[in-house]
Every structure is written in C-alpha cells, then in structure tokens.
C-alpha cells in the first residue's frame, strides 16, 4: 500500500520506534519535507533498515550535505536525502556530527553513491567517515590546508595561499 508523501514521516517514525527504539530523536518538517533527526551512533543501522526494508526501500541516496552552524554545539550536522524510487517517497536524515571526533560512520557499504559524496564532505568540511575505502581530498589539491567550505574559512582564500 503506497502512502501519500505527507504522512511518510509519521509512519516511518512509528515503524522505527517499534523496530529500532531510540534511534530517532525527533521528526521535523520544513516546507512540506520531513526530516528524521537520527542518533549518530545508530546511523548505519537506520541506513540499512531504510534501504533494505520492504515497505520503504530507500535505495537512492540523492544528496549528502554537511551544514556548518558555526556557533551551535555540535557545530556540524550532515543531512542525507533519500529517495525510494519504487514508492516515490522522499525523506531527509539529519545527523549531528559529534564535536570531538568529527566523524560519522561511512555509508559506502549501504549506498555506493556515498563514496564520492563523503570524500567531498571530508575535503570541503573536514568531517571524517571511518570505514570509507579511500577517504582523501577530491576537489582541492592533496597538499591543501584547511577545509574551504567551513564558515570561518575566508571566501577569497587565506593570504598564505
């Protein structure tokens, strides 16, 4: 039975509350899109659940984008956008990056698309993804210092460059 996109969030939260209790902190909505706030430690579990489970099948990782909130602690947050092509659902996962380790489990095991997206996130933001087969810079040259997309990195580049 295919649900309407509006109430995907609530159904998903209730389904997750049963099978993976404590994994989802809260559900937020913005402009008609629903975002699940996920425990960083349980990210891998949730990812496999969302991709594998029959009623959901979120097999398409559309986007992975870190967000630098600068003054907030924890400072970084990574947002995943998932699509289920079979049921035409769309969901967003928001995961806070723990400040001291600055790392999240890598999802390349679940979605192959995460490979380059995580390398870009590491290169431009400095968020590490342990478990990634080949985590190195993808955009900047290998000897580049600093992570340019952080909000405290000047747009026109550091003078030393």
């Amino acid at each position: 039975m295919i649900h309407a996109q509006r109430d995907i969030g609530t159904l998903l939260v209730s389904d997750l509350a049963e099978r993976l209790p404590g994994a989802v902190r809260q559900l937020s909505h913005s402009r008609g899109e629903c975002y699940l706030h996920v425990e960083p430690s349980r990210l891998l579990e949730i990812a496999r659940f969302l991709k594998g489970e029959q009623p959901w099948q979120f097999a398409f990782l559309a986007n992975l984008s870190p967000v630098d909130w600068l003054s907030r602690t924890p400072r970084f947050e990574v947002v995943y956008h998932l699509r289920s092509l079979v049921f035409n659902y769309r969901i967003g996962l928001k995961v806070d990056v723990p400040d001291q380790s600055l790392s999240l489990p890598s999802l390349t095991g679940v979605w192959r698309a995460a490979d380059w997206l995580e390398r870009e996130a590491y290169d431009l933001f400095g968020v590490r993804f342990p478990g990634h087969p080949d985590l190195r810079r993808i955009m900047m040259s290998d000897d580049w210092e600093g992570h340019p997309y952080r909000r405290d990195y000047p747009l026109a580049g550091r003078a030393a460059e």
Partner: protein
Amino acid sequence: MGLIDGRFEKNLATDAVDTVLNLGRAYSLWPVAYGLACCAIEMIHTMTARWDLARFGAEVFRPSPRQADVMIVAGTVTHKMAPILRRLYDQMPEPKFVIAMGGCATAGGPFRTYSVVQGVDTIVPVDIYVEGCPPRPENLIRAFVLLQERVKTMTIAKLPRSTEPPIRIEA
C-alpha cells in the same frame, strides 16, 4: 631562431623574409584544443559552420600543444590547474601566442574565491584579452583578427635597444 634571427639590421632582405614568415604564421594560427569551462562551448560554436573560424585559418584545433601556435584559455583557471596550464604553455613551440578568453581568464571573472587564479596573466604572458562571460563568437573572431595584426609586426631583424619610448609621468 636559427642562424638568421636577430643577426642583421633591418634591411630589404629581412623585410622580405618577414613578409613571407608572417604571412604564413598569421593565417594559419592553430589553436590547442583546450577548453576549461563555459567559454569553451562558445569557442566550439565559433569553430563550427555558422561562425566559421576557418575563414581566419584557425579552425584546426590540435589536441597536442606540440603542433599548436595559439593557446586559447577559455574558462576559469584554478590553482590546481595553474601548473598544468604553465607546463602546456612551455611545451608549445615558438612562436606562440595566448588569447585570454572571457572574464575568468582575464581577471578571475565572477569567481573571487580561494581556488581561482585571478587572471591567467599571472601564469602565462597573454597577447589578447577577450571580454565577455562568455564572449560572443564575434568577440573571439575579433581577437583572432587583432592577433593576426600583431603577428604581422614580428620581425627577424635585430631590434634597436628599446623600441617604445620610456613612459614619462608628468610632474
């Protein structure tokens, strides 16, 4: 340049040789196929049938710099690309010319960021700057016409000590 370059004063013979050499160079400026970004698309348009760069003898886009005379820097030059661009320029045989096509190559264009070189003339000597983002094909063709005029002024004769008068800044 071989045995005869810069060896003789400007006389009838060197003028004759100049005319022949410059005629050959001016009307067969082979660009190196080297598109960086959006300007490259406009460069391809200039090459195809409607704008027809062939009328100016420059439609042969050589993939290797070894067989090219002009390097059209068509697009944004980033710091990661700069050493490669310089190496390509060095690997081109003399006499070689550079056309900085578009705002990005001329002065960094709309991208005042950490990774963009603000103007390709900090890397290679540029002969002609083409304005526009991307420049219309007519601009690029005008650049080739200007370049041809410049090529025609080249000479093998010995140049006097300094050709241009020193710039005097009025008190």
